[in-house]
C-alpha cells in the first residue's frame, strides 16, 4: 500500500474518532449554546445574585403555576394558588403543596419549565425547591416555597407567564448529584 493511502486512512480514522467524541461533546455544547444565545429559553437555575434587580413602579404581570407528576410518581403535588398577579422588579413567594402518600421514604426532584420561552431568562429565583432534591417520610407533607422576581427587561409583549414544574421520583437515583449546569429550565411545550 502506498504512502498516500496510509495517510488517507489515518486522516479518516481521526475523523471517525473525532465525530464520536463530538457526539458526546454535543451534550455540554447544547447547554452552553442555549444559555449563551438564550435559545430554547434555557437559563441557569442557580439562585440569582443580582442585587440591583428590584425596582419600584414595575408593571403588572400575571403568573400561572402548573404542576405535573412524572409517570408513576405517587406524590400529591399542586400549587397553593393557580395564578397570581405580580409586579416586575418585586420579589414574590409562591408555595407548592407536596405530600408523600406512600408508606416508604421517597426522594423527588422538580424540574421547572417556562412559557413563553423568551420570558425564561427574565424570571429570576432567589430560592426554589427545585434547586435541590426533596425527601419526604411516609405520609409526610410540606409547603415548598419558590421566591421569584421578573426583571424589568421582560419584553413588553409578555403579560402572562406560565411556570410549570414536573416532579420526578428519584429515590432509586439516590446518591447521584445533579450538576449545576444541568439545572436548566425548559421551554414548556403547549401541546405536551
Amino acid at each position, binding site marked *: *500500500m*502506498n504512502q*498516500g*493511502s496510509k495517510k*488517507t*486512512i489515518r486522516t*479518516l*480514522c481521526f*475523523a*471517525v*474518532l*473525532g*465525530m*464520536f467524541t*463530538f*457526539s*458526546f461533546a*454535543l*451534550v455540554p455544547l*447544547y447547554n452552553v449554546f442555549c444559555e449563551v444565545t438564550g*435559545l*430554547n*429559553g434555557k437559563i441557569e437555575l442557580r439562585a440569582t445574585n443580582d442585587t440591583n434587580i428590584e425596582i419600584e413602579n414595575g408593571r403588572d404581570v400575571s403568573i400561572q403555576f402548573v404542576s405535573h407528576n*412524572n409517570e408513576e410518581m405517587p406524590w400529591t403535588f399542586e400549587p397553593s394558588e393557580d395564578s397570581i398577579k405580580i409586579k416586575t422588579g418585586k420579589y414574590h413567594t409562591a408555595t407548592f403543596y407536596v405530600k408523600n402518600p406512600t408508606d416508604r421514604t421517597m426522594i423527588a*426532584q422538580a*424540574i421547572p419549565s417556562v412559557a413563553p*420561552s*423568551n420570558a425564561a431568562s427574565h424570571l429570576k429565583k432567589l430560592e426554589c425547591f427545585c434547586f435541590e432534591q426533596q425527601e419526604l417520610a411516609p405520609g409526610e407533607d410540606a409547603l415548598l416555597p419558590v421566591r421569584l422576581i421578573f426583571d424589568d427587561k421582560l419584553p413588553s409583549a409578555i403579560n402572562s407567564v406560565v411556570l410549570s414544574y*414536573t416532579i*420526578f*421520583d*428519584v429515590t432509586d*437515583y439516590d446518591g*447521584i448529584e*445533579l*450538576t449545576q449546569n*444541568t*439545572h*436548566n429550565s*425548559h*421551554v*414548556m*411545550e*403547549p*401541546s405536551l
Partner: protein
Amino acid sequence: MSAVIESHGHDDHHHGPAKGLTRWLYTTNHKDIGSLYLWFSFAMFLIGGAMAMVIRAELFQPGMQIVEPEFYNQMLTLHGLIMVFGAVMPAFVGLANWLVPMMVGAPDMALPRMNNLSFWILPFAFFILLSSLFMEGGAPNFGWTFYAPLSTTYAPPSVTFFIFSVHIMGASSIMGSINVVVTIMNMRAPGMSLMKMPLFVWSWLITAYLLIAVMPVLAGAVTMMLMDIHFGTSFFNAAGGGDPVLFQHIFWFFGHPEVYIMILPAFGIASHIIETFSRKQLFGYSSMVWAMASIAILSFVVWAHHMFTVGLPLAAELFFMWATMLIAVPTGVKVFNWVTTMFKGSITYETPMLFAIAFVVLFTIGGFSGLMLAITPADFQYHDTYFVVAHFHYVLVPGSIFSIMAAVYYWIPKWTGNMYDERLGKLHFWLSFTGVNVTFFPQHWIGLAGMPRRVPDYALQFADWNMISSVGAFLFGASQILFLFIVLKTVMGGKKATSKVWEGARGLEWTVESPAPYHTFSTPPKIN
C-alpha cells in the same frame, strides 16, 4: 510480511475464484464482496418487505384484525431499521464494491481484507436485531427513530441487543466508507482527475464522507442510551438533569445526513443510465458534482426541521426552514440536468431507463412534499401524520429502491455476462410503478385529512384509502418476487452480453468483457 507469504499472495493473483462456500467466506475480491452485499441486501429487502405486508394487512380495514398492537409496533420499528440499514445502505455499498474499482480503473478496493470484515459482520448485526423478536418483551417497538426516553426508560429489555446491532452496523458502514474513500483518492488510473470521475464515483465519494461524519454520532447516541439504561447516567432522563430534546438533536444530526446517504448514490446511478439511453453526453457534469457537494454540506444544517414541534424558538424555526428550502436549489439543478440530458436525445426505453425516468419523476414528487413539510407553520399540521409517511416513502422507494433496481438491470449483463429478460423486466417495472403509486399516493390525502402515523387502527373516514393503499402494497410486494426470479434467471443464463452491452454506454467498466473477469485492471488503463 515475509517474502514467502508475499510471493504466495502474488501467485494467488492469477487464480480465478476459489471453489466452494469458503470462497465467499474468505474472499477479498471486490466483485465477490459486491455480490455478497447485494444478495444480503435483497434478503433484507424481502424480510423488511414481509414486515411491511404485515403492517398493510393490519391497516387493510379499521379495527384490530390480525396482530396485537404491541407486535404491530415491533413490525413498524423493524421494518424501518431493516430497510434503512439492511436493504438500502448495503445495496449501495454492494454497487460501490462492484463498480467503483472498475470505474476508476483500479484492480480492487484499497483495503480488501477490511472489505471482507465489513461485510461479514453485517449478518451478525441483523441476526442480533431479528433475534430480539423471540426475546421476552419482544423486539424494539419505539419506531426506527428510537426517541429516548421511550427507547430507554420505557423500552423492552431487548433494546440492549438493538444497541449492539446498531454499533455493528455502524462499524460496518464506517469501514466500508473508509475503503471507498481510500480507493477513490489513491487508486484512480493515471490521467483520471477528480473532475473526470464518473458521477457514480463522485456520488459515493461524497456519501462516504457523510457516513464517516455521521455514523460515529449515531454510535454516540446509542452509547448514551446504553449508559442511561445500564450505568445510571441521565443523558436523556429529565429526572436526572438530562434532556429528551437533546436526544432528538443528536439523532437528527445523524439522521438528516443519513437520508442523503440513501439518495446521493441514486443520483449517480440515474446520471449514468439517463446519459446512456438518451445517447447523449450528460448535461452539466460539473454542476452535478457541485450540486451533490452542496446537498451534502447543507445536510448538516437542517436537522431540526424534523423537530419543529418540540418547542424551538422562532429564530431556530426560521433558520431551519430557510436552510431546508435552500436544498431545493441544488436538487432542482440535478433534476433539470437530467431532463436536459433527455431533451432531443434518441431515447430508448429499456428497463433501466424506465426505472431511471420513474426515479426522476417520483423522487421529484417526494421532494415537493418535502418542501411542503419544510414550511414550519404547515409542518405543525403535517407532523406525525401519514403525509410524512407518504413523503419519505416517495423519496425512498421510487427514489433509492428504484435507482438500485435500475442499477441492477443496467449492470447485471456486465456482472453475469447474460442479458436479463427485457419483457419480464418491463413487466416488473410496470407492476412496481403501479404498486408504489397506488400504495403511497393516497397516503398524502389521508395524512392531510389527519390520520396519524404509527397507529395499528384508525378512524372510519380513512378506511377507503387505506384499503387501496394496502392493495397497492400487496401488488408492489408480490412484484418483487418477480424481480428475484428475473435476477436468478439472468444469473443462470440468457442471451450473451457484449462488452459494451448498451449502445450509448460510456465508462471504463464497459471496456472489459462481460462477465467482468475476476481480476480487472491489474495494469491501469490509459485515460484520454
